[in-house]
């Protein structure tokens, strides 16, 4: 067999390498953009001073260090977390509509956070993250539980319907509870993504969870590719399918839970980013997962910058911006892929 053929098959892929290689540039650019532009324009020199010689008496310095920098970092992280969660869910279930917001995972988080805020007010940030994760597991559990009980319930569109219905139901209960117990002020935080009010302390706490999730996701990426070919094939190839699924769910719960605890519910990032990524890099999850993370993070951070200018000088919730882009995309997916029979 000829050498050239071996080299051809071993050749690394160009697009994923390009995306991962240029990622730092894009991230730095996005951070710069996000710090520079907003309700109050701040010039580059002030930004430099704020980072190098922080003066707590200077309003601009405080805006940068307390608001804009944490905000863009949160957007990058949350975008990455949701995109990874969506990619893993889509690969694992072979369902092109799977994503944290559609499958009730984020609604589960917000629901449990509401309950905890009512019964254990003044929760520590750490507990908040844990509650959010429990909620993610709860939401996913109900939706997939119902899906498994119903005949054909795990088919893409039907699972999306079950997820949306249960998600809406959980949201409604949360809204009713928070009104009844008069905490709707606090809770609106979690329902209209509060990316502009992100707490730097929670951000720091969230980082380790996110890194663990990210690391696990990369570790399991190859197994997800195998699983995405089909469950029978995956078993036949000698993969411990149940184990892979369990770790995948753990990652989704961990990342989505952290994302909701940080900034509340944000729709559609987890749905559209994995699709765009697969379109660019193919269906090998060793590339899909890291590239989704990069594209998701940058996308959400740019949406966040955009949200400052839609109704200038007032902020528009970032969820509105992602929905404006996400809903047409979602309809497009159902239109083009909905007719196909998929497992």
């Amino acid at each position, binding site marked *: 067999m000829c050498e050239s053929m071996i080299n051809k*098959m*071993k050749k690394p892929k160009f697009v994923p390498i390009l995306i991962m290689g240029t990622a730092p540039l894009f991230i730095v650019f996005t951070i710069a953009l996000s710090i520079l532009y907003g309700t109050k324009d701040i010039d580059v020199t002030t930004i430099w001073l704020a980072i190098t010689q922080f003066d707590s008496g200077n309003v601009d310095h405080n805006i940068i260090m307390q608001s804009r920098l944490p905000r863009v970092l949160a957007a990058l992280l949350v975008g990455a977390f949701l995109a990874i969660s969506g990619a893993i869910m889509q690969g694992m279930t072979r369902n092109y509509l799977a994503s944290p917001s559609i499958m009730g995972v984020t609604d589960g988080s917000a629901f449990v956070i509401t309950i905890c805020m009512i019964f254990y007010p003044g929760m520590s940030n750490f507990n908040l993250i844990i509650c959010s994760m429990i909620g993610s597991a709860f939401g996913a559990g109900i939706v997939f539980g119902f899906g498994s009980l119903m005949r054909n319930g795990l088919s893409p569109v039907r699972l999306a319907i079950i997820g949306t219905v249960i998600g809406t139901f959980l949201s409604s209960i949360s809204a009713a509870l928070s009104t009844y117990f008069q905490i709707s002020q606090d809770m609106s935080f979690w329902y209209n993504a509060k990316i502009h009010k992100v707490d730097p302390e929670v951000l720091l706490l969230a980082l380790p969870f996110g890194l663990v999730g990210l690391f696990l996701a990369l570790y399991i990426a190859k197994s997800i590719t195998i699983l995405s070919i089909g469950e*029978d094939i995956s078993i*036949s*190839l*000698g993969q411990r399918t149940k184990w892979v699924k369990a770790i995948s769910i753990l990652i989704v719960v961990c990342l989505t839970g952290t994302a909701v605890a940080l900034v509340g519910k944000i729709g559609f990032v987890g749905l559209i980013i994995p699709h765009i990524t697969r379109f660019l890099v193919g269906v090998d999850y060793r590339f899909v997962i890291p590239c989704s993370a990069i594209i998701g993070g940058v996308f959400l951070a740019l949406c966040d910058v955009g949200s400052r200018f839609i109704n200038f000088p007032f902020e528009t919730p970032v969820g509105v911006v992602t929905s404006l882009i996400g809903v047409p995309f979602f309809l497009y997916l159902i239109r083009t892929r909905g007719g196909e029979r998929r497992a």
Partner: protein
Amino acid sequence: MVTSVIRAKQLTAGYEKVTVFSDLNTTIKEGKITTIIGPNGCGKSTLLKTIGRILKQQSGNVFLQEQDMKTISTKEIAKQLALLSQNPEAPLQLKVEELISYGRFPHRKNVGTLSNKDIEVIEWAMDITKTTAFRDREIAQLSGGQRQKVWLAMALAQETSILLLDEPTTYLDLAHQLEVLKIVERLNKEHHCTIIMVLHDINHAARFSHEIIAMKDGEIITVGTPKEILEKGTLKQVFNIDARIMIDPDNGAPVCFGYDTFLEQELGEK
């Protein structure tokens, strides 16, 4: 003496609360093509899936080279036994070559790219299945016949001595059916693969198998050579058809060239 490569002992399997077969015993001979035939719902695919550990048995054992499969790690099994299920569906954007390369999964370490050995096997699998020509295409662009050959190539890339095929010719036209079965025959002759497959076409079963297992209602009715199975009495018992059999003068295989249902009165008399 031919040794058994797979043996099922008091095997019971099914789906949730439905038991498809129970206490089934059978032995598969090494280096032979064994075909399971039987009416729809008789349990032939279930038997194949249970042997291939896709479906967990409710009780009983399957022995691979006389070792209980429960005691062998799934990855080790995957190095000895490959299974191609019925109508698999891959992500449509996947490239042919990429899909076939996943057949190397059980042989590869957790990280790293394909070794030269991996690539050699992949090339061989594409060569034998004649899929090399469309190696760069996406699954979405292939016809049913091409897809089936690609799946077969993936199973071959697994480099196992045992191959389990669940209705490998379903939805294919006559020429493609024959092409797939000829590949199977070649694998058996040249590479001494043990092949166990489920087929609906009894003439194909007769022509390409050494041994046929005839099943009905979750039981093995009889096991034998094509000539022993393609016979009026057995076909009546298994499919409830009145078959007309002759021997193909070209290849010596028995052929069912026509059949009828039994009339109601005849059945009533018995």
